């Protein structure tokens, strides 16, 4: 009976159990909840009992002069010490499971950036959470995420698998999960990263291994070949568009949702009105100046919040970006 009660309580509030480790975490959680409840009842129950029993009758009651009791003090310092050491050991066992990576795991690169996730499979297929695409993983096989970030700290948090790991710019961190049943799992960003911290969710769908392989093949087949495959500079400009964080405020697809910066689609060669009423046709000098010193010309209807890139981007990189913008019609 006790184990039934134990399991019911274990996952009353916890999200769906995505993996075996999630089940262990929930048992650990249930044990902690119950032991805390018992400790709470002893402490606060004892206190309320004393309050009721030793209510003050007259103003100067005689009270017992008990200054200390060594045996009692030994008990309530050594027993909590043993309990917390036990809790530590159980937690460490679960942590070891989280942090020992199985050999042949499916490797997926996770790149976090200001307010979107990008996943890259081994065979070049890339999924972008901003476009609402869903990451697929096989059931029953371990999947290892290699996590990095393009701008600030983010954290790849999957409540369903009770696991998260920070995405640190300039460094790779990793974590692994193994789905034990099919289903769709929510992904959050758990490290504060600014305006869009609360709306950069992603979805992970665990599917049967065969369906997973089929899906991957089909996805590989119809990934649009990069239009400017031949144009070397534009390819570099495209990766800079993501690496330097321009993707956080400027859109490159005419149908993409409006962001806090003007869109680059059709920028080259079109007229641009500015807040101070003046206007200019979009050309290399305007783009170069807006990158190095954005406050010089602010497009009408947009706030001047773009940080200056002087010293952070070289001239050769600016030319690549301009080439990339030329290809955006």
């Amino acid at each position, binding site marked *: 009976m006790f184990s039934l009660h134990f399991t019911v309580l274990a996952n009353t509030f916890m999200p769906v159990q995505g993996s075996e480790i999630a089940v262990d975490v929930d048992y650990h959680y249930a044990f902690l909840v119950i032991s805390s409840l018992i400790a*709470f009842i002893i402490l606060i129950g004892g206190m309320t009992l004393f309050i009721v029993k030793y209510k003050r009758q007259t103003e100067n009651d005689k009270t017992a002069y008990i200054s200390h009791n060594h045996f009692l*003090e030994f008990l309530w*310092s050594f027993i909590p010490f043993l309990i917390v050491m036990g809790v*530590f050991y159980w937690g460490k066992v679960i942590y070891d499971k989280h942090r020992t990576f199985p050999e042949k795991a499916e490797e997926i690169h996770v790149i976090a950036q200001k307010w979107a996730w990008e996943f890259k499979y081994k065979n070049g297929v890339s999924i972008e959470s901003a476009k609402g695409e869903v990451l697929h993983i096989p059931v029953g096989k371990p999947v290892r995420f290699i996590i990095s970030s393009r701008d600030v700290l983010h954290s790849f948090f999957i409540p369903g698998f009770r696991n998260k*790991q920070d995405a640190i710019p300039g460094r790779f961190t990793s974590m692994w999960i193994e789905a034990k049943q099919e289903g769709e799992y929510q992904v959050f960003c*758990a490290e*504060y990263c600014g305006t869009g911290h609360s709306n950069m969710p992603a979805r992970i769908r665990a599917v049967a291994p065969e369906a997973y392989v089929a899906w991957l093949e089909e996805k590989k087949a119809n990934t649009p070949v990069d239009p400017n495959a031949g144009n070397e500079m534009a390819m570099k400009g495209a990766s800079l568009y993501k690496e330097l964080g321009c993707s956080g405020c400027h859109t490159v697809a005419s149908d993409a949702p409006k962001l806090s910066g003007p869109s680059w689609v059709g920028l080259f060669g079109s007229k641009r009105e500015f807040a101070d009423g003046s206007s200019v046709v979009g050309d290399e000098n305007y783009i170069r100046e807006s990158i190095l010193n954005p406050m010089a010309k602010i497009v009408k209807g947009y706030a001047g919040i773009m940080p200056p890139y002087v010293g952070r981007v070289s001239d050769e990189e600016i030319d690549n970006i301009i080439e990339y913008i030329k290809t955006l019609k």
Partner: protein
Amino acid sequence: MFTLTQAEQIQDAGEKNYLIHEKGLWSWLTTVDHKRIAIMYMIAVLTFFLIGGIFALLIRLELFTPGQTIVSPDTYNKFMTFHGAIMVFMVIIPAIPAIFGNFVLPIMLGAKDVAFPRLNLASWYIFMIGAILAASTLFLGGVDTGWTFYTPYSISTSTNVVLTVLGAFTMGMASILTGLNFVVTIHKLRAPGQTMSRIPLFVWAIYATSIIQILATPVLGITLLLIAAERILGVGIFDPTLGGDPVLFQHFFWFYSHPAVYIMVLPAMGIISELITTFSRKTIFGYTAIAYSSFAIAGVSFIVWGHHMYVSGQSEFAGKLFSVLTMLVGVPTAIKLFNWIATMYKGSIRLDAPMLYAIGFMFLFTIGGLTGIFLASLGMDVHFHDTYFVVAHFHYVMVGGTLMAFTGGLLYWFPKMFGKMTSDTLGRISWVFVFTGFNVTFFPQFILGAMGMPRRYYDYLPEYTSLNQISTVGSWLIGLGFVIVLIAIIKAFISGEKASANPWGGKTLEWKTASPPHYENFETTPVVTEGPYEYR
């Protein structure tokens, strides 16, 4: 027994009481009397508490419904940062040491003043400069990095981080000087015959807190200066694009900030020791155990900061090392709680307003402490880190712990500070609102955290809506509760009845002098011949 010649009935120090001894604003602004400086700190801290509280209500209002309720994400992030920074740097760290430490500590030691009175006034001015520097960002467009200023976000954001950081640095300076003052006062200015085992437990708690203030705050100082250097010079120590390591920033920041949470809670434990003994009319159970556990907590607090960084790219070995050490912190806290309850055994307990707040502290701090063990265990923290479970835990320990004890201390020492009694019924009503409001606000957040809702979220999934709405309603109750406390104090100022020298029957030294006390605390320096809680 205590051998001060005048008996207990010292009603009023007449025109020599510190409030009317010197007249005029200039006498207040240039006073070196520790009691007046405590009152000036109280005015400053209570106003910042009001501002911080308003931001808390605004945050909860925004989270009433998913999506935009009242403000845009950027403004919400600024509310979240202001609530954090104001509450941590301007309210909860200075609150108990600077107000009650300044006022009551010298009197409890039978001293005329703190060791360095002019330094005490200087630290008030430094605190005010720092507070104005940081609060000025309210009008200059705010800051949106969260009170933790994690790099590289705090380096790249366009909001004025440098001003807030310099404000926090200056307030840290004031905190160091106050700590320094108290350590020397406790070492050198104790009354004749008052050995270290005869000083009240509130003094022990302030002593442990001052040691943490002196040893931890300088590292925060250098960390904040480095953030300013990063933004101005691009020094690159914490900036990953220039080769730095943001995780090292977290090490430096939490090396201060975890001991800082013990700067917040240790004085609260000191007040609770005083309240429980006075209102149970019973000597404390295990005096040395409680005094030593304050020091054990202070000592262990310096080696546990890594539990904030289990999933931030810290190595597995360091994670296990910090987890086993963090478990050690639970033991002295458990000792204190058991000793307080054992004090009530066979006592004669009267549930006045201050004692109600002490009971509230015991209730909420037990929950806060136990959930701390959840977060210390590696298995749980990987899931719970940066979720609302953590938010609920530290509010249970900070609001449930420090602010309940602060209000209890305020109502307990108000007669001594101003010579007027606060109305007991208002105090009880305020407790009911604060206590129930608190549980309604923060207990649902434990469940939200378990369900995986991350921290500092402006918008959340529809399934979290109902719990967030309960939590918002709860926040209105807390707001109401603290407003009632304010009303009780203002009412006491205007029409509070005259307070006797010892309204609650306390045995520590501050109840042996008049209320409000003589400007030099005692007519003749008292001689102490026995322990602080000798209830027979």
